[in-house]
């Protein structure tokens, strides 16, 4: 304990640079707080606009309407960012499954058997609910991702032999469908990301369900932390080789 406290004292000497950073951070925060109070109180944002165009969006929930219809760009780019994150993770490592199969405890197995289908059901409900109440593609996708995390934590043996091709198709289906619908607007002589008025409700629901599947798979593969074992790219350098190279 004494050693620890001595180390702690030694570790935090009076550092002028740290003090400067502290002062700068406090100054920045104070400026931000001051700027925040200059925002006019009477501005009511875009609530009235959204409410005015709500009937034409095809959904009843204002947040879903903004997400997928009025500001579809944001969502499209965001789905692409998720895809890029997965590409980044997959290009770094293979999924670190343990070398030999571990025996999952029966309690955990029972919990997974009970919860995983239930979570899929909840995800589907949230996506469907998104058109009129709180919910939507992101919430549903998050629940699906949680189900994937549950399966991965239980270390079920079939997870490590998952093929990469169906996984890739699953990851791509949402972004590609969304992009296709967005481009369809251009082909039909309208602008990007505009939907035909009559069909917009069902189209939005379709986009939401495919995106939820993709988001769920994306989050689960982000948790897996690497590409599947049978991926197209060959074996990269293991950390041991790197270390030996540095030594030499």
């Amino acid at each position, binding site marked *: 304990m004494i050693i620890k406290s001595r180390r702690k004292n030694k570790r935090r000497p009076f550092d002028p640079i740290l003090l400067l950073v502290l002062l700068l951070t406090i100054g920045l925060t104070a400026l931000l707080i001051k700027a925040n109070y200059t925002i006019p109180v009477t501005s009511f944002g875009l*609530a009235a606009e959204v409410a005015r165009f709500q009937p034409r969006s095809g959904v009843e929930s204002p947040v879903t309407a903004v997400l997928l219809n009025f500001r579809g760009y944001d969502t499209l780019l965001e789905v692409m960012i998720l895809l890029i994150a997965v590409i980044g993770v997959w290009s770094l490592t293979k999924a670190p499954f343990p070398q030999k199969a571990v025996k999952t405890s029966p309690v955990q197995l029972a919990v997974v058997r009970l919860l995983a289908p239930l979570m899929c059901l909840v995800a589907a409900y949230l996506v469907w609910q998104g058109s009129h109440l709180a919910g939507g593609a992101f919430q549903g996708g998050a629940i699906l991702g949680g189900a994937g995390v549950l399966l991965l934590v239980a270390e079920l043996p079939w997870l490590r032999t998952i093929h990469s091709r169906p996984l890739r198709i699953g990851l791509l289906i949402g972004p590609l469908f969304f992009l296709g619908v967005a481009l369809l607007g251009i082909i039909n002589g309208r602008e990007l990301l505009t939907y035909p008025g009559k069909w917009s409700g069902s189209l939005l629901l379709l986009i939401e369900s495919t995106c939820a599947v993709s988001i769920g798979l994306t989050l689960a593969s982000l948790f897996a932390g690497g590409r599947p074992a049978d991926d197209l790219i060959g074996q990269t350098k293991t950390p041991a080789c790197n270390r030996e190279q540095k030594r030499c």
Partner: protein
Amino acid sequence: MLTNNLYNLCGLLLFGMGLFALFACSHLLRKILAVNIMSSGVFLVLIATAYRPLGAGEIDPVPHAMVLTGIVVSVSVTALALILACRVQETSNHSLSQSERNTNDGDSEE
């Protein structure tokens, strides 16, 4: 308007705290946590600006949609950053990991 200001203040303080920790902490995981705190602060400011008390007008759904997008993006960015941090620790040479061990906060091993 008081509630908005309170939560705005909370968000900005969280942002400042995270910013300072981002500079001051040396452990990579702690830096990632600090960035997450910062993003939570920004989201809180956005949502608090859109908030109206019950019966005092409509709530602006545009910031809600933006924050919803931001939360999902911040999770994916966190995942990528964590993988990169693991990679840094794998490939960093001995002297670096030695100095890191002396300054970081993972004291549980001593």
